[in-house]
């Protein structure tokens, strides 16, 4: 027992959590006693005896799990433990529950964890749709309803869409650029382990006195600064999710810039790599803004600072400016990796080079630059400085141009192709093109100030964001999961179940979110538990489709679990793709490559006689030989 508490692992993590929380709690109580204050503060926004342990407890958890062991030893000058790679790679399902530095293990940890939160957030959406099926209040109180949609959005954004892309890229990207791992494997593992902490805080806020945070995922001040304790859980959860995002983004940037295989210049990088580089550029510069603004709210709540307290000279609109300066780039953080996935999927399953590859890469960079200049389009009716609306409208509309380039280039790629429609990944990719175009069109309309004045904060917005985030991001996530499932698990999923999942998701998605445009334009505001009876029929229909959409995801869950365990073996390259990750076995060997591959051409040279992207092994003659002996050890097996 004592030995188990000394070794990094779950026992020590549990102890660390307890010690961390106890330390934070004792610190608050002692300081308050010393200042002559009552030990506990239970005002609505206060609760320092809860907030401080909420920071120190998770830090204790990370220390206990072993996230800092190597760095602490190194920093203190103690002899570091020689790297024996005992924390690297998965040899049994238990290795997925450890602090593991293998990017492939971390990728799967990310994906599984984020999908657990996807189902939790989805279940919240089901409860909301049940409540909204009829006008009036039937199932949940309005206050609980506000908590549900706030937590639904926070979970889906911060612990599903953003990190699941990081998970997919974590698995695929080092393989794609011919690197043995990410640049900073320990930082990579730390990034992952901060994520469940954030997710548990969002979910755990439902246990707080006063309920979950209920000021929306946007948490506008001053509603958030005066909200009950649950809001602090949101403020702190965002810190952990944000720190995780920033660390991962730095890791990606360094990996992409310094660890590409010889011969892979920028114009030979697959578009997924370009996409994740662009995303990381957004994350490292924008995410500190949301971290900052959530701290400002927390300080207003707990330390009586006055950032957003108007009676003491604060300014509530500045919250929105800082918040959207992150949260608009965040929209692209949630979309650009998906663009990358779609490029890989379409090129591979259409058997065609990407049409206009360089313009595709430049369009990504164009979106990165423009996305920093559009944030105030979320504030056209906020009462901000009126002049700002027109320049922000122009930049907002201009961002449709690089996005349009991507749509048209994908269509150009399909032209003259040999379209493999039987793969579920390709179905999701094609549906993504149509759905995202619709979401983009409603986005252009929203970008126009006069139209936005009418529809902002209505169901039109709900429809728009779900077209771009569900029909956009989530479709690309499904495409990516289906595309790389054979690579990650070594097994094939059931295409028939995949098609059922696809068609039911598509029908459910359109049935749920298309009518929301109409009821929004007709006058139904968003974020309401109750609504005028005139919208009753539409809402009942929407709820029915929403339940279909929810049920369809269970097919996906079943397909993934069963195929992971019992699916037929996939082989190294079931899609006959060109990029490097398909040149190794499925799942790949623990250290990816026996020898670093050499890159000799572009990534999508389909149909070019004799062209290849990369060569494994020392000589041309050896290409295509069976994988080296280390391959195939239980690399990707897991729970």
């Amino acid at each position, binding site marked *: 027992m004592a030995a188990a508490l000394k070794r990094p692992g779950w026992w020590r993590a549990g102890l660390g959590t307890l010690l961390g929380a106890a330390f934070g709690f004792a610190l608050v109580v002692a300081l308050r006693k010393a200042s002559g204050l009552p030990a506990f503060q239970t005002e609505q926004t206060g609760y320092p005896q809860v907030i401080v342990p909420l920071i120190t407890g998770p830090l204790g958890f990370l220390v206990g799990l072993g996230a800092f062991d190597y760095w602490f030893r190194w920093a203190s000058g103690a002899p570091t433990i020689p790297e024996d790679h005992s924390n690297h790679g998965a040899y049994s399902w238990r290795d997925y529950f450890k602090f593991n530095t293998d990017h492939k293990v971390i990728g799967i940890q990310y994906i599984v964890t984020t999908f657990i939160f996807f189902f939790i957030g989805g279940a919240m959406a089901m409860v909301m749709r049940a409540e909204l099926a009829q006008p009036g209040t039937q199932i949940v109180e309005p206050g609980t309803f506000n908590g549900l949609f706030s937590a639904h959005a926070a979970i889906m954004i911060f612990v599903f869409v953003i990190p699941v892309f990081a998970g997919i890229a974590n698995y695929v990207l080092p393989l794609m650029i011919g690197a043995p791992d990410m640049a900073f494997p320990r930082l990579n593992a730390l990034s992952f382990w901060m994520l469940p902490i954030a997710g548990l805080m969002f979910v755990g806020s439902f246990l707080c006195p006063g309920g979950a945070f209920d000021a929306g995922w946007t948490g506008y001040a001053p509603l958030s600064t005066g909200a009950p304790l649950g809001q602090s859980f949101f403020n702190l959860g965002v810190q952990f999710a944000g720190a995780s995002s920033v660390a991962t983004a730095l890791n990606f940037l360094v990996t992409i810039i310094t660890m590409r295989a010889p011969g892979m210049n920028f114009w030979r990088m697959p578009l997924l790599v370009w996409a994740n580089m662009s995303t990381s550029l957004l994350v490292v510069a924008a995410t500190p803004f949301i971290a900052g603004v959530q701290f400002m709210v927390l300080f207003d709540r707990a330390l009586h600072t006055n950032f957003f307290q108007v009676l003491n000279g604060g300014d509530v609109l500045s919250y929105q400016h800082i918040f959207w300066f992150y949260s608009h780039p965040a929209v692209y953080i949630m979309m650009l990796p998906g663009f990358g996935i779609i490029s890989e999927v379409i090129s591979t399953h259409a058997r065609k080079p990407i049409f206009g*590859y360089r313009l595709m890469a430049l369009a990504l960079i164009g979106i990165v630059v423009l996305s920093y200049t559009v944030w105030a389009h979320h504030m056209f009716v906020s009462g901000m400085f009126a002049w700002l609306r027109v320049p922000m409208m122009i930049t907002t509309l201009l961002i449709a141009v690089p996005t349009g380039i991507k749509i048209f280039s994908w269509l150009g790629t399909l032209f003259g192709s040999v379209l493999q429609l039987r793969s579920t990944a390709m179905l999701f990719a094609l549906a993504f093109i149509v759905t995202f175009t619709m979401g983009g069109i409603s986005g252009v309309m929203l970008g126009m100030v006069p139209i936005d004045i009418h529809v902002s*904060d209505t169901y039109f917005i709900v429809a728009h964001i779900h077209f771009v985030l569900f029909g956009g991001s989530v479709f690309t996530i499904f495409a990516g999961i289906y595309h790389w499932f054979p690579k990650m698990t070594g097994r094939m999923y059931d295409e028939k179940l995949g098609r059922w999942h696809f068609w039911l998701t598509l029908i459910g998605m359109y049935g749920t979110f298309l009518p929301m445009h109409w009821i929004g334009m007709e006058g139904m*505001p968003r974020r309401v538990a109750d609504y005028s009876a005139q919208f009753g029929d539409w809402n009942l229909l929407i709820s029915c489709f929403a339940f279909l959409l929810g049920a369809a995801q269970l097919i996906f869950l079943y397909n993934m679990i069963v195929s992971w365990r019992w699916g037929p073996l996939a082989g190294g390259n079931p899609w006959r793709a060109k990029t490097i990750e398909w040149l190794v076995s499925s799942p790949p060997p623990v250290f990816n490559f026996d020898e670093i591959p050499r890159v000799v051409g572009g990534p999508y040279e389909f149909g070019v006689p004799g062209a290849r992207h990369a060569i494994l092994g020392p000589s041309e003659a050896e290409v295509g030989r069976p994988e080296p002996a280390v391959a195939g050890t239980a690399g990707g097996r897991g729970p």
Partner: protein
Amino acid sequence: MTRATLARIIAAILVLTVVMAVPMTQIHWNGTEASTQAHDIDTLLNVMIILSCFVFSIVLVMLGYCVLKYRAKPGDESDGEPIHGNTKLEITWTVIPTVIVLFGAIYSWIVLGDIESQASDSLHIDVTAQQYEWTFNYPEQGGKVVSSKVLVVPVDRQLDLKLTALDVLHSFWVPEWRIKRDLVPKGPGGNDVDDTVVVTPDKVGTYNVVCTELCGFGHSTMRALVKVVPKPQFESWLRRQPLVKPTPGSPNSASTGTSGQDQSVDPSQSGSAPDNSSGSS
């Protein structure tokens, strides 16, 4: 692709555009139009619907064409044509969307100027929001106001609404007017907030003010009635209302919640708002 195929594709795009755009422009998506601003905004919306149908048709027709024409037969493991791009085409689909969105931007800018142009004879009303109710104050002589829980306004006269929130953010929206603006709480120094919005109701009727900024558990029921009445009816209604002192200390001389309740709000007032159907004056 032959010239004939290209012609067929372009024809299909145009036909699909018309098939989608004609019914879509016939529907009054935004519901009743009850202000001069509503007409401008709905016209802009219709123009954008037509352009959007065109862009969406291009995507649908191209995708449909590729899926029908290039679908692989089972077992076909060949590769497609190695086309890497076409500079002319890429320039085209960069330039055309740029032109479309810049047209949209300029058109929107013009509409924005129109719907926000100030008339000289506009009627000034102070709108105050708090969790979860609306108060409308009509300034009168001697620093006194008429205070009402129902927004009663004359038809065909521009309203100049000054918006204030007393606690958290709220948002003023009358869907039939197409006008929306957040109400922002301000400190004693008064923050630099654009807090006036103009609208010219041009249709007699009863509508709702809907709060569209999440403001707490009562957000979904935070509504107020709007009655747009002919001018003589409005004036006689205004004359019948008692004059009250705006509560001191609150921003913009608006009545505040509980402290203002006793002196400014007559509970019978909402009942005394004119009924449009009766038409009495």
